């Protein structure tokens, strides 16, 4: 619990600490920011050590009621999925901070403070067990991101950042309405809580599937819209290429690495967990959108002339696999989806770092401007090659595991019931090879035709240091994914058991018996269902 608090709060403390440093002390600012971020990572490792993967329930929970009249509280805790995503956050954030050391040359202090604030908010999103708290963190993300793109972005940054902001706001307002409605419905109709209102996630989760289907449908969409925008799922994706392209490298890395996962995380945590019957109803629709997005994103990526836009569209394609896996509602699919979230964070994050390396040297991202880089930047070529192959889904690297499991899940899903989802989605694997290899060929191979590229320096020590840890995990997950899959296995099984029990009346998976912690006694159940 202490670890959880520290993981969450250290970036926030760091962010405040930066305010007390003079803005001329640039080195100090950088290292303080980096230091806090790394410490937070270390505590998240401690979190990992304290975590029991046998236990499918939330662990290291803490509860402190905050607004008693509405039963809104500071409730946090983690299960396997949130642990993985917290680790991803605390892993990517220091890398993003470290990668900005040379790239950011104005208003450093606010930049690093905002990055730390962002890390705080992201961690908060993944550990919240209270809908209201979740909403606060969810919205808090917008502020640092808005400024990061708007101040340190590229030339169309204002358009991009406003678009990003409005898109997200458009999604979150229905969610707020949904939270209020849900809290009120559960609190008055299903359980007795003092003032007829609660935002306690665990409590809501226990009873939400008793909500009549016509309300569930509306609630499902109130939440889903927000998450589908964040993922993003076709056709709600157009904010992404702009935001990615205009954001500074670290912003893109965090955006791709962590922010997008908040959407897919939300789909599992709220849509599947809270509204199972409505999910059964819409699984085909959303899976079709995901499958369409896989092919669509890949094809559009193929003809982009800007490397960063290409990678951005590839995200649309890759996240489609995650959504497909999630809505297959099988253990394979959801586990694949979770590991694919991590994978995408690593490999796409690394691709953005690579683009950043090129951009810092040439101040352009047009594919046409490059060619023959492999000869003069051999080390960089290796790293870009690994990131590319991981994205292509080469076995032995992480992308394969995620794609394989999501496709497997979709194939055998009793909820989807058609093999066409898998067949069409699998073509995305071919297209991924097409657009990435083609990009690689045009940027790296051939002879140097553009004189501006002649004197480019290979990556420096700092860039090595940002790439190496990512490569380590790319290979680790690729060769032995069990280490990571094991963490979320039981919580996923528990979820799938719940879904199958509701749909088919029986559970499939045996779970280790863990004594349930007694529920808060201010609730008593109304037997009206």
């Amino acid at each position, binding site marked *: 619990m202490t670890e959880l608090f520290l993981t969450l709060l250290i970036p926030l403390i760091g962010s405040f600490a930066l305010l007390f440093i003079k803005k001329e002390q640039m080195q100090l600012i950088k290292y303080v920011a980096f230091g806090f971020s790394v410490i937070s990572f270390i505590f998240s490792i401690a979190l990992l050590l304290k975590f029991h993967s046998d236990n499918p329930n939330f662990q290291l929970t803490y509860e402190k009621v905050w607004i008693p009249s509405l039963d809104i509280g500071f409730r946090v805790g983690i299960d396997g999925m949130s642990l993985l995503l917290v680790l991803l956050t605390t892993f990517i954030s220091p890398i993003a901070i470290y990668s900005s050391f040379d790239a950011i040359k104005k208003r450093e202090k606010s930049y690093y403070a905002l990055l730390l604030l962002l890390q705080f908010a992201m961690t908060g999103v993944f550990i919240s067990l209270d809908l209201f708290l979740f909403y606060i963190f969810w919205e808090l993300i917008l502020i640092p991101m808005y400024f990061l793109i708007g101040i340190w972005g590229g030339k169309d940054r204002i358009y991009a950042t406003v*678009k990003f902001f*409005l*898109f997200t706001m458009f999604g979150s307002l229905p969610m707020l309405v949904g939270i209020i409605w849900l809290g009120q419905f559960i609190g008055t109709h299903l359980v007795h809580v003092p003032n007829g209102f609660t935002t306690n996630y665990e409590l809501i989760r226990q009873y939400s599937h008793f909500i009549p289907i016509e309300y569930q449908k509306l609630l499902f969409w109130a939440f889903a819209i927000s998450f589908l925008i964040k993922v993003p799922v076709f*056709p709600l*994706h*157009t*904010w992404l290429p702009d935001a990615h392209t205009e954001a500074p490298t670290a912003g893109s890395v965090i955006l791709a690495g962590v922010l997008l996962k908040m959407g897919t995380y939300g789909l599992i945590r709220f849509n599947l967990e809270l509204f199972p019957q409505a999910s059964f109803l819409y699984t085909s629709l959303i899976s079709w959108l995901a499958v369409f997005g896989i092919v*669509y994103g890949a*094809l*559009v990526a*193929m*003809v*982009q002339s800007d490397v960063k836009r290409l990678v951005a569209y590839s995200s649309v394609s890759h996240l489609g696999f995650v959504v497909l896996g999630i809505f297959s509602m*099988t*253990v*394979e699919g959801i*586990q694949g989806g979770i590991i694919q979230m991590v994978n995408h964070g690593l490999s796409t994050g690394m691709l953005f770092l690579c683009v950043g390396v090129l951009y810092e040297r040439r101040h352009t991202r047009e594919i046409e401007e490059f060619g*023959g880089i*492999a*000869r003069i930047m051999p080390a960089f070529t290796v790293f870009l090659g690994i990131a590319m*192959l991981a994205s292509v889904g*080469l*076995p*032995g690297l992480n992308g*394969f595991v995620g794609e394989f*499991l999501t*496709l*497997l899940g979709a*194939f*055998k899903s009793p909820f989807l019931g058609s*093999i066409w989802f*898998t*067949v069409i989605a*699998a*073509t995305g*694997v*071919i297209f991924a*090879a*097409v657009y990435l*290899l*083609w990009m690689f*060929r045009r940027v*790296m*191979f*051939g*002879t140097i035709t553009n004189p501006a590229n002649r004197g480019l320096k290979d990556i420096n020590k700092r860039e090595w240091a940002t790439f190496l840890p990512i490569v380590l995990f790319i290979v680790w997950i690729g060769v032995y*994914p*069990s280490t990571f*899959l*094991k963490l979320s*296995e039981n919580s996923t*099984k528990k979820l799938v058991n719940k879904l199958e029990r509701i749909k088919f009346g029986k559970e*499939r*998976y045996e779970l280790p018996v863990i004594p349930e912690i007694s529920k808060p006694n201010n609730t008593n159940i109304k037997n009206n269902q």
Partner: protein
Amino acid sequence: MTHETLLQISSIVLLLPLAGFAGIIFFQKKLGRAAGYIGSSILGINLLLSLLVAYQKLAFYSDAGMLQWKFDWLNLGSHPITIGIGLDNLAAIMLIVVNLISFLVHVFSLEYMREDIRFPRFYAYLGLFTFSMLGIVIANNFLNMYIFWELVGISSYLLIGFWYEKDSAADASKKAFITNRIGDFGFFAGIMILFFTYGTFMFDDIFAHIGEGHIPFDSGTMLTLAGILLFMGAIGKSAQFPLHVWLPDAMEGPTPVSALIHAATMVAAGVYLTARIFPMLTADALLFVAYIGAITAFIAATIAITQTDFKRILAYSTVSQLGYMIMAIGVGAYSYGFFHLVTHAWFKACLFLASGSVIHAMHHSMHHAGEHHMDPQDIRNMGGLRKKMPITYLTFLISTIAISGVPFTSGFLSKDGILAGTMAFGQLSGHWFIAFSGFASAAMTAFYMFRLLISAFHGQPKTHIAAHTHESNKLITVPLIVLSILTFWFFYSFNPFDGGSGWFYEKIKTPATVVQAEHQWGFFVPYESSHSHSSACCGEHITSPAEEHSHSHEKDTHHALNKFEEALHHAHLPAMIISLIVAGLGIFLSFSFYQFKIFNPDGVAELIKPFYLLSYNKWYFDEIYDASVIWGTTTFAKLLALFDLYIIDGIVNLVGWFTKVVGHFIGWFDLYVIDGLVNLTANVTAFFGLVFRKFQTGRIQAYIVMTIIFAMVLLYYVL
């Protein structure tokens, strides 16, 4: 040795090249040229170990089926995903093929790649490739196979694009990878169907289930489909029609790579896969396989006739021969198909390495002469190399004879068996095209191979470059000699006219089909089971093949298990006679055209111009694909990108714009209407204020007058 030990050694054989790869890639700068020696020694050890393993397996565990290890990779859902390694006779022989050729190529490259700036990296990639290929060989399940399948793809990508500064090489590597991916898509889908149905990736478990009559979706069609989808992987990797287009382009890679990957091992992986899945292929799937092989063999042979690039001729020849192997497995001549894989590996690797020796010599000669614009691979620039490079010539000659199917060579033994198989198949099923393609390709193979031999090595040098070439050194010639020796018949069978009487045929027996009789050719169903209607047994090998007793025609000792074996036995003699005739004809024509110039090739080309152009332009496959699939996809992608930019994003911007307009309107409304009303009220008030101010004069008299007036008005109204 226990089989535990055998499997342990096999895993060492698998992992050593990976260790080599890792070691070399991390220390490439420090190692420099030592990388080559390290790589070669590792492969030398590997070769010895694999010889040991293969000997042990074939001599002592020959009938033990597949020795295997299984372990859990992932624990997921209701059952764990198991992977493992397995060693059967097929794998044992493949181990030798892969390791020997890889070893020789390692040695060969010490000289061939000597001056390359990325010499250590080349050895690292060779190690990675060998590791991946061995992974395919000793896979005992589809998942392992798929994983290593892709790794082979990527090592091939790296090696084809090794000279990535060359645009053609960079393009070729990309094309190879993507074309393979298309085939792999089918492979993957096939694996999905099997895993979905059986919940396992293991070959033996899956075959056992099929043997029990448990088939995907309870439909024979789905079983056929699963087989064909799996075979799509082979279509990609073994460069079969219609995905064969990547292999000739892959010749842009260094020549040792062409010998190792694109002649002997990787492209054989598809054949190996087809052999692996043979027991579960239904009649329809087998027919599909056979036709794909036959079409490929034929088309590629016709193309090879008119090409002028030394390596491309060999490449098309490889495609054609791979078609042969696939076709052989499709018609059920399983053992001969695999036999041809092995014999072809030796002589094709030899041909490629010899071509490397020639190109190397031509390069050196060009370098000496200061000539940089000539194509050192064009056979029209060669000629007369026989006297300059006698060892290269001799080994090339032996291999050419072997590939043409002349008696006393290994090629004759395997090819003859395949042709007998196609004839037997034609006879039993009526599909004679396959046999026709087999014989036609045999004739064409003899023709174009001798054309290549004569143009490059015989006659007078056609350029001064060719005139000043020298024999390569021992690092190059020794591998050539080793490979050419392996093309003699006695390694495989003491009877030079019948491969069926050798040890090879005895060790590699056609596995019994596990498919139910109603989905299988009647002539593949074992006699006993078709009489007793018991289900075919799984995974076990047919115990006494017809060919055990060679050509003695002793009917009483002849226990063919099914009709096909029997027909194949009878087709042997006619097949041999016809194949000798067609090969002889091909060689004869080739000599008359190119050696003795009885006919003028250009005149004949003019005479049959449309055919000549068709062949010369490779049947326009690349052009057709460019104009259809590639153009179609990119255009569609561009349209989608525009759609994304103008429609989807357009709607978003429209909504934004509309909101803005509404905002402006509301702003205007607010300013002029709402605020207007407010102001109006204020103005009206102010106006009245102004008016009434006039009355506020401050003089008592005026007030009194006004009071009186108002009082009167009031009174008037009231009253």
